[in-house]
């Protein structure tokens, strides 16, 4: 009921409208094998406290050593977002006590982040929206607190530190978004690009991507900012949108009543579809950042940046434009095919080998994506190599098999990995282009359907479709439909 339009409430009498101002902070887990400051595994789902060591447990006297690949992935993400890489960035300690943080501080970056001033162009409601990226910085993840599931969960919490020290980047946007739809579109585009460049698996259920939002309202036309609330726990695209819609409605109601918005952190409850203030951890925001004395400033020179840039793949937006220009695909098809890097790679390989970009697009978008969905697999796990699909497309284009038979052959080659030409030969599926055989089938069909034949002759020519269907059925779908059509018409219209 809190539709996105409802917050445009006019103040009675004044005609004032409020405009939401939204910025997102996204945490993204990097796909390294080992943690950011120690050699423990980052694998999700290991038994509790088995991927831990003195470093990530925060034992006194241990020293962190930075993972080179974590830096490379962070740089890759920053470059993909058009950021300027800082030649020197500095790790800092963010101090607070919470049991998921074994050291009593989190190693993060504060006033000297890794990269600044990027942007991401996103499509929302048919328009391109330019969203600025304030900064990208590196930090370590905290452990996982379990509040339920133990016999004494009513009086104790339990901690698993496997996640402690997993490398993260935090991507902070400018407050450039003006609606929940834009925030949703930005988050979605950000996930696509991060997965595309291979720095994260983007798995939101496993927490590989997490999102907080800052939202405030201001009278439309005003350039200053209103008091903002920070929303936590927006762990799916849907939650981002719903939580923002609720919160904008809540703040609008306050302002319309002449009350003030309190600056606070609010937690989104998906079950209730509402936000409520987090029980304030008293003085929690006094983090007393200071430079991490155990880690020297991180220096990234031009040579390193150049190396990372060379490994950066073609980004989704550029690839989408190229698919439209190079393969003549409709914008929507190009967008779908480039939404996932493995899918785009698969499509391109099939399109090139088949020398029929449109047919390849149709096969990939319908049949391959159907299989991916049915079998619940990722595109890079599709057992059918793209060249096999291309061979099938060529069999159709060469007139060797009909489109209908091609769907059957597809099922076989998908399941067996066989060459489609072999399947066609073994199963005798070649298209019947022998006019004699088709004429024979036509005569049999007419003989068996005398009444329909009589009606046709009496002028009910719409029955042609019925006869085509019967003949195709009689030939096991192997007859070329255009040939059947022509021969039938000849025979039926014969005086």
């Amino acid at each position, binding site marked *: 009921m809190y539709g996105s339009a409802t917050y445009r409430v006019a103040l009675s009498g004044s005609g004032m409208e409020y405009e939401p101002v939204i910025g997102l902070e996204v945490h993204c887990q990097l796909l390294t094998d080992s943690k950011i400051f120690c050699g423990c595994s980052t694998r999700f789902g290991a038994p509790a406290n088995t991927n831990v060591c003195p470093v990530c447990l925060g034992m006194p006297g241990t020293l962190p050593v930075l993972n080179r690949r974590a830096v490379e992935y962070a740089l890759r993400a920053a470059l993909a977002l058009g950021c300027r890489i800082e030649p020197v960035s500095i790790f800092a300690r963010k101090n607070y006590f919470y049991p998921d943080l074994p050291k009593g501080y989190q190693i993060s970056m504060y006033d000297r982040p890794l990269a600044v001033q990027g942007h991401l162009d996103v499509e929302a409601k048919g328009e391109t929206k330019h969203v600025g990226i304030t900064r990208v910085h590196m930090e370590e993840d905290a452990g996982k607190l379990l509040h339920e599931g133990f016999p004494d969960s009513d009086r104790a919490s339990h901690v698993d530190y496997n996640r402690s020290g997993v490398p993260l980047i935090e991507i902070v946007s400018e407050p450039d978004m003006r609606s929940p739809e834009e925030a949703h579109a930005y988050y979605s585009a950000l996930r696509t690009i991060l997965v595309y460049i291979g720095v994260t698996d983007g798995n939101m259920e496993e927490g590989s991507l997490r999102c907080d939002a800052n939202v405030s309202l201001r009278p439309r036309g005003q350039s200053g900012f209103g008091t903002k609330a920070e929303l936590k726990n927006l762990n799916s695209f849907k939650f981002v949108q719903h939580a923002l819609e609720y919160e904008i409605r809540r703040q609008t109601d306050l302002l319309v009543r002449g009350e003030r918005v309190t600056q606070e952190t609010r937690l989104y409850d998906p079950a209730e579809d509402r936000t409520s203030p987090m029980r304030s951890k008293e003085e929690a925001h006094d983090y007393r950042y200071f*430079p991490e004395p155990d880690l020297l400033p991180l220096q990234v020179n031009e040579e390193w940046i150049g190396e990372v840039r060379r490994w950066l793949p073609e980004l989704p937006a550029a690839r989408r434009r190229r698919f439209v220009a190079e393969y003549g695909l409709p914008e929507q098809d190009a967008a779908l095919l480039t939404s996932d890097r493995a899918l785009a790679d698969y499509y391109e390989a099939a399109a090139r080998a088949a020398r029929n970009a449109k047919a390849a697009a149709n096969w990939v978008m319908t049949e391959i994506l159907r299989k991916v969905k049915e079998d619940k697999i990722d595109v890079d796990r599709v057992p059918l190599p793209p060249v096999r699909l291309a061979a099938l497309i060529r069999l159709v284009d060469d007139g060797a098999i009909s489109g209908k038979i091609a769907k059957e052959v597809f099922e076989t080659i998908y399941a067996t990995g066989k060459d489609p030409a072999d399947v066609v030969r073994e199963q005798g599926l070649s298209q019947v282009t022998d006019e004699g055989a088709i004429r024979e089938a036509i005569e049999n069909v007419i003989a068996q359907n005398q009444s329909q034949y009589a009606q046709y002759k009496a002028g009910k020519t719409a029955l042609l479709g019925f006869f085509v269907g019967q003949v195709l059925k009689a030939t096991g779908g192997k007859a070329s439909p255009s040939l059947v059509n022509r021969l039938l018409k000849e025979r039926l219209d014969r005086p």
Partner: protein
Amino acid sequence: MAIAKQEVRHIAKLANLDFSEEEIGRFTQQFNSILEYVARLDALDTSAIEPTSHVDSGSHALRDDVLVPSISREEALANAPESERGHFKVPKVIG
């Protein structure tokens, strides 16, 4: 810039430390005397000097992304005051 008792109490709280009124008074004095001493540096002209974050100005030592065996769960939990089913057990906190 003198420090008041209120700020000492605040810092103690952030550090999860409990002090008596007598201690708070003593630490307030000590804080102030330390700060006064350090404030002598303000007499120097540092306008031409780059801020320093670290004593060592060398470049970062990086490690390759290679797994190193973790310690056993028993070892990990050995110093924990309390543990349960492979987890560290802590006083109840709200998530």
